[in-house]
């Protein structure tokens, strides 16, 4: 049996610009084949690939430093502390935080969000208080708050999301006007399902006018737009290293310093105390009181390397423009295919994510067969189950782009999708 002669090939007429070729050369994972086909990695919203400099920095840290921070009175210990604190400063600068101590290292966005649900749940939210979130929040920014319903007697109020992925801003204003029990707004910077970027500045200003505190889940948002927490005026901002071309297992929680007095530690143990007696503890200062145990120093170093890579090697405005160009090509192409329905899209601010489904075709069949052609996409509920259920969907296929993707890859994906659909329908 011969292969299908119309088998798609990675040979688009679209020129690969020198700049994109240069960007691609930084990412060793792009140089591999999957099932005999060049890898076309379109699962960037799940995790991005890592540049050489990040991989090398992690190796360098473990090869030459590898000592515990803060407490060691030896040279390697000092070097390790220096690396760790330099990463904190670099991150503060990257997200526009005025005070370096407002940067707390965590395991990732999920850890940051659990941290806040737990500590705000005991120190700030009282039984009967309402937390406002959107229907399109990732489970990470939903499940920890759902748990507080039973544990702390709080209520959850959901802001509706339409099929374009965007929020109903009139409903938002009405909610703020009609309810006086909302104490916290917790919202994604942008949706991991649809890519819709929420109008954060406007929303935060309105929330603040009502005395509502604001937490931003920046897992997706920090990757595709510049973030300035001071300008935004949010109380908290959470993100992960691994979506931002950095390592897995390191994340950030920005805490506005005005919360230091209110917010208790999340975990207890070494490194977060100033004095311990058998029955009483004085905690260390911020941020250390929020970082119990040996931290992920190599992860912090790797994240710093990722930020420096973006700063030094990548013209970010050109990179984001390229992503938007690819996004439009991808969206347009997918919309042209018969039977395909897209969630999101439209003219409003958008991360380069296209989420779609095909009536009568299971998303797992699509993703499994696309993998057979070397294309990595994600299929499933994308940790947004309640919203998909509301829309009557079991799941979607999501293709998400990064600046190292090319027009040829987008075209190859579209041809592969058509080929696979031809076999499945």
């Amino acid at each position, binding site marked *: *049996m011969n292969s299908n002669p119309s088998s798609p090939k990675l040979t688009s007429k679209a020129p690969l610009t020198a700049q994109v070729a240069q960007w691609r050369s930084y990412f060793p994972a792009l140089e591999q084949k999957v099932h005999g086909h060049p890898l076309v990695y379109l699962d960037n919203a799940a995790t991005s690939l890592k540049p050489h400099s990040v991989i090398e920095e992690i190796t360098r840290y473990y090869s030459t430093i590898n000592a515990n921070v803060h407490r060691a009175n030896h040279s390697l210990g000092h070097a390790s502390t220096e690396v760790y604190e330099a990463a904190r400063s670099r991150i503060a600068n990257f997200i526009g935080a005025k005070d370096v101590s407002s940067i707390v290292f965590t395991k990732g966005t999920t850890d940051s969000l659990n941290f806040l649900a737990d500590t705000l749940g005991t120190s700030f939210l009282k039984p009967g208080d309402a937390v406002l979130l959107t229907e399109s929040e990732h489970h990470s920014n939903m499940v920890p708050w759902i748990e507080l319903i039973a544990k702390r007697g709080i209520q959850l109020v959901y802001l509706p999301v339409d099929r374009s992925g965007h929020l109903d801003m009139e409903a938002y204003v009405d909610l703020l006007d009609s309810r006086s029990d909302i104490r916290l707004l917790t919202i994604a910077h942008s949706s991991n399902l649809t890519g819709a970027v929420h109008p954060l500045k406007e929303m935060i200003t309105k929330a603040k006018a009502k005395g509502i505190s604001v937490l931003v889940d920046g897992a997706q948002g920090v990757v595709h737009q510049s973030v300035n927490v001071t300008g935004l005026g949010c109380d908290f901002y959470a993100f992960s290293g691994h979506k931002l071309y950095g390592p897995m297992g390191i994340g950030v929680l920005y805490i506005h310093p005005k919360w230091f007095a209110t917010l208790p530690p999340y975990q207890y143990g070494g490194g977060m105390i100033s004095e311990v007696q058998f029955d009483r503890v004085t905690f260390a200062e911020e941020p250390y009181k929020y970082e119990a145990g040996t931290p992920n120093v190599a992860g912090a170093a790797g994240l710093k390397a990722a930020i420096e890579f973006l700063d030094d090697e990548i013209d970010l405005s050109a990179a984001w423009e390229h992503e938007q160009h690819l996004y439009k090509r991808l969206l347009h192409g997918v919309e042209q295919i018969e039977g395909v329905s897209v969630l999101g899209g439209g003219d409003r601010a958008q991360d380069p994510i296209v989420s779609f489904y095909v009536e009568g075709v299971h998303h797992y069949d699509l993703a*499994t067969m696309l993998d057979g052609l070397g294309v990595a996409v994600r299929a499933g509920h994308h940790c947004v189950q309640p919203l998909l259920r509301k829309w009557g969907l079991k799941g979607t296929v999501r293709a998400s782009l990064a600046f190292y993707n090319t027009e040829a890859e987008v075209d190859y994906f579209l041809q592969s999708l058509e080929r696979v659909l031809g076999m499945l329908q």
Partner: protein
Amino acid sequence: MMTLKDKESQLIEDFGMFEDWMDKYGYIIELGKSEAPMNEEEKVDELLIKGCQSRVWLNANMKEGKVHYRADSDAVIPKGIAALLTSLFSGHAPDEILEFEPVFIKEIGLAQHLSPTRSNGLSSMIRQIKNYALAFKTKV
């Protein structure tokens, strides 16, 4: 009457004819189409295989000392894989099914080609096939 081992060798040979994975998938899809769909009433949650990302139902009955399996799924590839398994294992005595250690999953590359979760689904299917055989054996 072919033994399970013979049927498995035949299966491995069949898959060896395909040049690339798209052809293998095409074949798996065809296998799924050849399996008679279950009635909607039959697709009860008790028959669902755990560990699959799509829904796969597996049922079995015993006739003249041999087990006969039937399967369905809401996705096409799992249905084809289930059909491959039901045609392999159907028509054999519980003892033969219980003693049989399949190697074809590795041989035809199914394990490396299906996502870990889906692969778990595949092993769950085989475990459930053996569970039915054990239940029938105990009953006899």
